[in-house]
């Protein structure tokens, strides 16, 4: 800090110094149950026992999710997808919360929640379809309690709060009946935290004590802009200003993410209101396949974060304790290979929609003027030999 001039007031700490760079390990406030070296650590408030089966399940989910991401990236390179939003490095954050949500909960994703979609049972081919350009999202949100991807940054956080307000009115919050009480997850990222909608969603959720978990995957980068451009304080601390708790969890630690989000969801279901969970992680890949991160970030950052890989640490933990043997890893790898093959074939086999699809489902019914436009276009197309 520079020396104070006479009479200048001291308003508190210099916030630039408080905030660390993106190589930071998240600081002492970071909740962790599994270190990057695969050591299990305990947290006084999160005393949770994971079964071997559960741990293997996390491992399988993360490996398969990573494979979806790798295959999709490759398919984009081969021209089969227009674009792909990569999640590499964020598997633990997504599987952690993806397995913490219960069937009756509802999830509002961004466009990068491929791991959460996996946990909700959405066929990854449906995700590929969106990025291939054959639909804007072709899964039934009501079937999976998983909303459609939202491209406008942060817009879905308000939908999440409104949906949660609906749950309150439906009497499915705070009844004490397990399997009935429900909550909503609002996904967003560090970039979105600057959006007005996200901040308004905090205001509304706090005002109505809505059963929402705001799950922010802070992957340190909003395309080319580092987290320091979005916030001068750790993001989770913002929650306090809105009047609800904020917590920072190691987003590369699937155990911690699961434990923290499970607790936050339970709190919401019980009627205790919203929680902000900042999953501290790193976008190992590009923003999307059109992005070139070498233009704006240091490779040393990426190397630092490679050492915190979410899958590697769980593998070490499983192996060291003898909870997964070579057969398990081979089996998961084989499953990933099968999934990859299915995605490659399924993606290439996806037909383009009929052009007349343009006119469908704009409204519940088709207004006469649109009907005319459609018919005229159909007649126009018919003038081309063999066009249809």
């Amino acid at each position: 800090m520079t020396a104070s001039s006479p009479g200048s007031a001291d308003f508190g700490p210099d916030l630039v110094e408080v905030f660390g760079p993106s190589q930071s390990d998240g600081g002492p406030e970071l909740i962790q149950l599994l270190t990057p070296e695969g050591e299990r650590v305990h947290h006084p408030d999160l005393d949770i026992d994971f079964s071997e089966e559960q741990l293997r399940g996390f491992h399988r989910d993360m490996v398969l999710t990573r494979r979806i991401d790798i295959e999709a990236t490759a398919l984009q390179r081969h021209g089969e997808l227009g674009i792909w939003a990569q999640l590499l490095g964020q598997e633990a954050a997504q599987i952690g919360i993806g397995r913490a949500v219960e069937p009756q909960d509802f999830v509002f994703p961004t466009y990068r929640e491929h791991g959460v979609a996996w946990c909700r049972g959405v066929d990854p081919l449906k995700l590929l379809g969106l990025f291939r350009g054959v639909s804007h999202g072709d899964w039934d949100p009501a079937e999976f309690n998983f909303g459609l991807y939202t491209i406008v940054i942060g817009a879905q956080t308000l939908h999440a709060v409104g949906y949660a307000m609906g749950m309150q009115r439906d009497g499915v919050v705070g009844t004490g009946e397990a399997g009935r009480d429900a909550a909503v997850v609002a996904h967003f990222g560090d970039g979105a935290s600057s959006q007005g909608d996200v901040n308004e969603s905090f205001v509304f959720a706090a005002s109505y004590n809505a059963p929402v978990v705001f799950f922010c995957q802070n992957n340190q980068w909003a395309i080319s802009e580092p987290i320091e451009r979005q916030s001068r304080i750790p993001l989770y601390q913002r929650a306090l200003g809105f009047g609800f708790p904020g917590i920072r969890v190691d987003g590369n630690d699937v155990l911690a993410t699961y434990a923290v989000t499970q607790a936050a969801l339970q709190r919401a279901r019980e009627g205790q209101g919203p929680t902000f969970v900042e999953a501290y992680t790193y976008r190992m890949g590009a923003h999307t396949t059109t992005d070139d991160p070498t233009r704006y970030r240091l490779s040393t950052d990426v190397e630092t974060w490679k050492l915190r890989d979410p899958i590697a640490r769980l593998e070490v933990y499983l192996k060291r304790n003898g909870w997964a043997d070579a057969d398990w890893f081979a089996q998961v790898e084989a499953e990933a290979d099968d999934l990859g093959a299915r995605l490659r074939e399924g993606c290439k086999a996806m037909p383009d929609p009929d052009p007349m699809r343009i006119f469908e489902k704009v409204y519940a019914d088709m207004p006469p003027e649109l009907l005319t436009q459609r018919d005229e276009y159909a007649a126009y197309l018919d003038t081309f030999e063999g066009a249809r």
Partner: protein
Amino acid sequence: MSRITLAKGLNAGLRKAMEDDDKVLVMGEDVGKLGGVFRITDGLQKDFGEDRVIDSPLAESGIVGTAIGLALRGYRPVVEIQFDGFVYPAYDQIVCQVAKMHYRSQGRYRLPMVIRIPFGGGIGAVEHHSESPEAQFAHTPGLKVVACSNPVDGYWMIQQAIEHPDPVIFLEPKRQYHADKAELDESVAPEPLFTSRIVRPGQDVTLLGYGPTVKTCLRAAEAAANEGRSLEVIDLRTLSPLDMGPVLDSVRRTGRAVVVHEAHVNLGMGAELAARVTEQCFYSLEAPVLRVGGFDTPYPPARIEEDFLPDLDRVLDAVDRSIAF
């Protein structure tokens, strides 16, 4: 039968809709205890409770965005935007989310919500309280846009909009809220929501108005009648989709049309109407379709707003020009 104002008609219509369907919610700034700054929601919170008549934080995007979530959960939110000029913070949610969710989801998401916007000028207000943003919404596929002009339509149209499965932008001419009274006879069945209608038959020129300008057009027709001219007035009522049937029928008879709205003329509803009339009854036209509207300026200070707003004389001037063509 009772004589009611537009404000009363809307209030009674909202009340009826809330009685008929307990999924109907009213939300917005000051809509609860205060009953809205124009008192359109007066008494509703007292009778239906705070869970159904929701006083919201002061954030328009938040209001519309949370209303979307409520609609996805199965509710039918009726959102009040306090004034036309304050809808823009919610513009992104309306245009990118409300309008597109049905299409995005191939019909799996239904958004049966109504966004009520008091619109138009003439109330002596400060800036941002007198605007006419209808074309911006009518230009957006996925939205339906209607404007009521009188107490009886207010009563029925708000109920029809709430019942409708698609999102509806519902424009209310705020200058008329507490102005003229009309007889409401509930035994007379209303016309369908997305229809235009002739409110005064005539032979010489077709006047097309909606919302606040229907009254202007009717007064112009009255004055013209004294000079021996017969003007037909159509209340468009629906702006998206347009109901061109009655408009084209009328213009084919009169050969002349003048569109009247408070919104800026440039790329306003009048431009679309002129294009469609020209495309669809070119050989019936005796004169180009003329437009009378707000000038292509920001809304002026209130003391000179009557010069900005179309009035009887400017409408008649356009009628003269049409006939003289």
